[in-house]
């Protein structure tokens, strides 16, 4: 069982009314794409934000990650809108 920490930032943090949660992933949720699908299946704002209509980015252990990246055990995963600093 892989228990990970998920962080949400900016618009996503507000939409989900959640900055951080710990979740235990089902065995089949092994990469970013699967994780996003699993979260989007929660329905409501989760589907709205992560279901494919809006753009977002994912980081694993504080590095930008592609959708096919595997999720290591105990990872810190962050999901956020495209960045707008500078």
């Amino acid at each position, binding site marked *: 069982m892989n228990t990970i920490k998920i962080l949400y*930032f900016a618009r996503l943090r507000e939409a989900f009314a959640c900055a951080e949660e710990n979740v235990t992933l089902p065995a089949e949720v092994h990469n970013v794409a699967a994780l996003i699908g699993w979260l989007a299946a929660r329905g409501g704002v989760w589907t709205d934000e992560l279901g494919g209509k809006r753009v977002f980015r994912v980081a694993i252990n*504080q590095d*930008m990650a592609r959708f096919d990246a595997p999720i290591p055990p105990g990872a810190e995963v962050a999901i956020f809108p*495209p*960045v707008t600093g*500078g």
Partner: protein
Amino acid sequence: MQAVIRVQQRDFSLAEEYDCLAGRTDIGAIVAFVGRVRDLAPGEALELEHYPGMTEKALAGIAEAAQQRWPLQAVTVIHRVGKLGPAEQIVLVLTASTHRAAAYEANAFIMDYLKTEAPFWKREHTAQGAQWVDARESDETAKLRWEKQ
């Protein structure tokens, strides 16, 4: 060569950072970029959220990539977070090299990657309420020019 990376609420001083390079006879060219809050009226504010930990890591990674690509004698990146008023300073990038081309290019490279890869998010607080700033397609395009070369 170690880059100076700072993420902070408080303001920074271009003069202070520049003065750190005083007396160095190996530096022929210094480029400084300062990004500031624009187009806000008095009383309005820009708020910068970030991802503590990843922010510093991302900026250090970008500075490192610049140092591998150009011969640089110094790199400084300072980015502010929190609430900022009109005309306040947001970001400073300082690059120093022997010749000007490296200092200019490395500086623009760092800003282009910072704009698209460092986890900061802007929200504007105006009379109409708070609104997240949308990412700009032109920033993505600016970054891509460095990957084609």
